[in-house]
């Protein structure tokens, strides 16, 4: 195990605060392990504690309880510099007064490495990230994607045991994000460096992660391979959080799912639109949103809005009253809205 976090808890607030209301529990009993070369994505809504988790791992935040180890070495009490991890920040954190070359070499110079060795490593990292022609430029003259690559190069050049990436794509536009997503994944595969990747974007999580950990209010809700999380969400929250559009959840009064379920769910792409009389449920179309080859159809079923993802060619007749057809095996049952899967 390159990276191991055991029962980590972190509370923000004044130490002297005696009342619980003055304290913010950012992380509670978080445990996770990342194997050698694994890309583990931590995903959750804003405020779920994912950036705090990363800052705790790299040592920028102290922790209340728990243990963090890197390559078997307990680093819980060590300063950031001695943890052998490199972090890429959301806002890139490039030094504006240093050119690309000096930005990349900063960490090596700080560690007083030999000048010739530094130059060679910088060249290598620049080559890898296609930055060679930008080495003498300053950050202010770089595009978002270029800044991102410099920030990555700064981490790569240190040859750390683990990369910690804090929402590295959130400051890029949509097109570039897709491109950089692939680039980061390729780079990570090539270097085989264990990586903790924090994002709030569930698409990023599902496409990039070897495994995905869903964080909510400082607790891990579920951890596993992306498709396992998608196909078998552990609870209502994970079901709602993953997928675009997310899983339809509705009371079991509308459709009786597995025995004992208070809430049932079904993925939008698992539903077909049919004649009202042929479906398991019937409702009326409220809105149709075309998205390229597919379209999202909003259907009102007994006061609940269900989303159906269909091919655009199958839209004929998708107006007025429709029937919703799906396999009973595609129906998920949950105890309640946030409750565990049955």
């Amino acid at each position, binding site marked *: 195990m390159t990276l191991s976090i055991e029962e980590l808890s972190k509370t923000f607030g004044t130490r002297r605060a005696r009342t619980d209301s003055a304290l913010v529990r950012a992380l509670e009993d978080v445990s996770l392990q990342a194997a050698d070369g694994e890309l583990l994505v931590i995903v959750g809504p804003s405020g779920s504690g994912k950036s705090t988790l990363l800052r705790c791992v790299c040592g920028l935040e102290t922790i209340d309880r728990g243990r963090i180890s890197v390559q078997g070495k307990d680093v819980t009490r060590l300063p950031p510099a001695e943890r052998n991890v490199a972090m890429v920040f959301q806002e890139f954190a490039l*030094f504006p007064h240093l050119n690309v070359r000096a930005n990349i070499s900063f*960490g090596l110079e700080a560690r007083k490495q030999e000048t010739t060795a530094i130059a060679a490593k910088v060249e290598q990292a620049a080559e890898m990230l296609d930055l060679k022609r930008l080495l003498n430029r300053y950050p202010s003259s770089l595009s978002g994607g270029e800044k991102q690559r410099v920030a990555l190069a700064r981490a790569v050049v240190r040859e750390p045991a683990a990369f910690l990436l804090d929402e590295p794509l959130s400051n890029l536009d949509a097109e570039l994000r897709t491109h950089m997503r692939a680039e980061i994944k390729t780079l990570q595969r090539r270097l085989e460096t264990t990586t903790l990747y924090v994002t709030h974007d569930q698409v990023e999580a599902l496409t990039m992660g070897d495994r995905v950990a869903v964080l909510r209010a400082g607790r891990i809700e579920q951890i596993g391979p992306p498709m396992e999380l998608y196909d078998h969400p552990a609870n209502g929250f994970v079901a709602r959080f993953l997928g675009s559009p997310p899983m339809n959840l509705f009371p079991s009064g509308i459709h009786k799912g597995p025995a004992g379920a208070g809430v049932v769910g079904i993925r939008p792409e698992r539903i077909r639109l049919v004649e009202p009389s042929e479906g398991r449920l019937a409702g009326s179309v409220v809105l149709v949103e075309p998205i390229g080859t597919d379209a999202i159809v909003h259907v009102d079923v007994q006061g609940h809005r269900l989303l159906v993802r269909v091919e655009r060619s199958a839209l004929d007749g998708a107006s007025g009253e429709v029937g919703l057809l799906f396999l009973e095996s595609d129906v998920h049952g949950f105890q309640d809205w946030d409750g565990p899967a049955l």
Partner: protein
Amino acid sequence: MRVRHEHWLAWPYLGGLVLLVVVPAAVALAIAFTNFNAIRPPEFTGLDNFTRVVRDEAFWRALANTTIYIVIALPLRLAAAVAFALLLHRPGPGVGAARAIAYLPSVVPDAAYALLWLWFLNPIYGPISLALGAVGLEGLGNGLLTDPWSTRVAIAVMGAFQIGEAFVIALAARRLIPESLYDAARVDGAKPWFVLRRVTLPLMGPVLALLALRDVIFSLQANFVPALLITDGGPRYATTYLPLLVYRSAFRYFRFGYASAVTVSIFLITAIVVYLQYRLVKRWRLL
């Protein structure tokens, strides 16, 4: 929608500026070419006053004194302002009070501040002299205000505490540097001294350069009060700075023409120094 330019709101201020600064400056410039002595009507004397300035030993001595003052005081003042800013930029218990204390000497009226230091620097019973005596440096203590060099240094040190504005500006400059840069430096393994040298000071550079420019202009005029109230220009003319020379020429010897010529010279010297500094700073890519 039509944008209304309310520039007339600036007119009262600009009017005052013209009346109180531009007009006297123009008058001073005109007087510099006359033999005006406040008794007889002025007569045009051409460049006589300026020739006299260039030939006057007192002028060169005052210029040297002022230069020495700047060379000692400017680094002290900048270093103090930056040090306070770096120590006090983070909120914490007592930091508010500490910031107020750092600013305080700049609030005290110059004359009161000078009289306070007159006591501090007293060579016989002043606290500085006594403290120096206590550690066996009586000679140094007794030389305060009587020995030219220790007096020059003392006046410069005195000025190094009045750094309120520079401190506030340096504080603002430090707080503009994103914390994420410091996080990145820490994770990268940079030690505090390395961070100060490679991150903090370079990023505060433009502001420090601006402060230095401002301080040169300020220093060319600022030491008038201590020179008048504490040292009276002495000992042996060691603290007769340019402003004091102007004041004496005009109001003790009634040589207004000559005093104006010195004033115009100070203005030209200031302009040249500031221009040279600006060029230097630009070459460093700082501004």
